[in-house]
């Protein structure tokens, strides 16, 4: 079944008619004297699949957190679907869905309940909510597992569920932070096929980050590479390969960002993530 059936009732005021859905201008974030994001500017066209790439510690996560209202910028301007995340956080939040790198589902609830909770948080009226939950769960092929507790789901199932959940409030923009990290090839393929359909059938803009360069090469329309807090390149994968005279996105990436491994200190979040993995999380 197509995604169109449930997304047809998209609200009239949408970014469909606007050319750019994300504008970032002079965005800067400093933490105690360390500049994580340094005067970054880029644009994402409506309906594009945009890859935001960069080595560890480059400022990727920080930029996304600012775009998604989780962090306040030190300076600079952003526009997400026509709204400023700093001045109108709630309006901006309604316009996008997000799938984080780390799970944000409630393990003690069922798949259906997780979906429902999201619908309530985003003020989706009850009947519409139930209809959309059904369509979305069927779309990601988890409808018959809707009554099962999420803690029994595999990593791939949880990721699929998070994608479906992020769509209940009909966003025009979907943020995906390392959507296929740690998943097997079949699941990765499935996820990109769902995302691809959302993009072609519904003109949903996709903003994703990944370390899997072949995937970015295959699916992205445009990309930007950030390193040490600054944008070092932007354009289509073809542009980047031409610019660096390489034949794969991975090679152009390495050419632009260098081959030294970025040493970072582990953050509190990293330590918790490792502990979580040790205790059998995914």
């Amino acid at each position, binding site marked *: 079944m197509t995604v169109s059936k449930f997304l047809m009732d998209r609200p009239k005021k949408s970014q469909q008619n606007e050319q750019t859905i994300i504008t970032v201008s002079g965005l800067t974030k400093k933490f105690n004297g360390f500049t994580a994001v340094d005067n970054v500017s880029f644009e994402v066209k409506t309906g594009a699949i945009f890859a935001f790439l960069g080595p560890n510690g480059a400022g990727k996560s920080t930029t996304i957190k600012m775009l998604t209202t989780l962090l306040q910028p030190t300076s600079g301007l952003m526009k997400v679907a026509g709204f400023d995340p700093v001045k109108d956080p709630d309006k901006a939040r309604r316009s996008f869905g997000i799938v984080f790198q780390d799970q944000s589902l*409630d*393990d003690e609830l069922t798949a259906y309940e997780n979906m429902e909770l999201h619908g309530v948080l985003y003020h989706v009226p009850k009947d519409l909510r139930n209809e959309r939950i059904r369509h979305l769960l069927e779309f990601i092929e988890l409808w018959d597992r809707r009554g099962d507790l999420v803690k029994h789901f595999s990593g791939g199932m949880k990721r699929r569920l998070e994608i479906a959940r992020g769509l209940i409030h009909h966003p025009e923009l979907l943020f995906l932070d390392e959507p296929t990290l740690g998943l097997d090839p079949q699941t990765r393929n499935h996820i990109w096929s769902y995302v691809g359909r959302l993009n072609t059938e519904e003109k949903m803009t996709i903003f994703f980050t990944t370390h899997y360069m072949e995937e970015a090469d295959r699916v992205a329309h445009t990309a930007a590479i950030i390193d040490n807090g600054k944008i070092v390149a932007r354009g289509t994968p073809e542009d980047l390969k031409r610019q660096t005279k390489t034949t794969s996105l991975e090679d152009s990436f390495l050419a632009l960002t260098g081959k030294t491994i970025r040493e970072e200190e582990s953050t509190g979040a990293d330590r918790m993530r490792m502990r979580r993995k040790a205790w059998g999380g995914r």
Partner: protein
Amino acid sequence: MVGSLGQPLLFLVALGFGFGPIYQRAGGGNYIEFLVPGIIAMGVLFTAMFSGIEIIWDKQFGFLKETLVAPVSRIEIMMGRTLGGATVATLQGVVVFIISFAIGFRPTNWMLLPLAVVFMLLTALFFTALGTAIASILDDMQGFQLIMNFIVMPTFFLSGALFPLAGLPSYISDIAALNPLSYGVDGLRGTLTSVLHFGLGTDLFILSIATFILLAIGSYLFSRIEI
């Protein structure tokens, strides 16, 4: 919930029957009767703090992160979470109360039971809010260990839960007088066994104000969470 009952139960039985005879001989009366309200408060304290602290984890790997990015006000989220945590902690207190019947405890005045639950709830709210406030600014679970040792344990031991505060050297009784839990414990003891140190009115008043202030602080810190 069942697992977390182990500790209060252990304290109740070990300390109650262990110190009972000596306490009685020293003229203190029935130690079990004295101890039960303290152990109820213990159940409430630990459960409340833990549910608040869970936020450290939840904001990175759990459902809380989803709520931080949703178009819902932080205050609403914080209130919901605090009330939820406080409810569980209060229930824990009630369960300890019921279990104490098995070792012979009986409240002296059944009519005051609702007031006892009020004290449990206020104490639960205070410590859930405290846990939430602390968790809002911490980034790492290592901090949790520190909290347990340097905040929760002293709070529990210096609150009159395990021993009477009357006649103690001033350095202990002064600290106890500054400890919000002392008023919760005293309120519980007053309503359940009619033994009071500060006075029911004082207990209610101080505990309410402290809880109110902490809810405000907790809300503020929670609203400023940045991950």
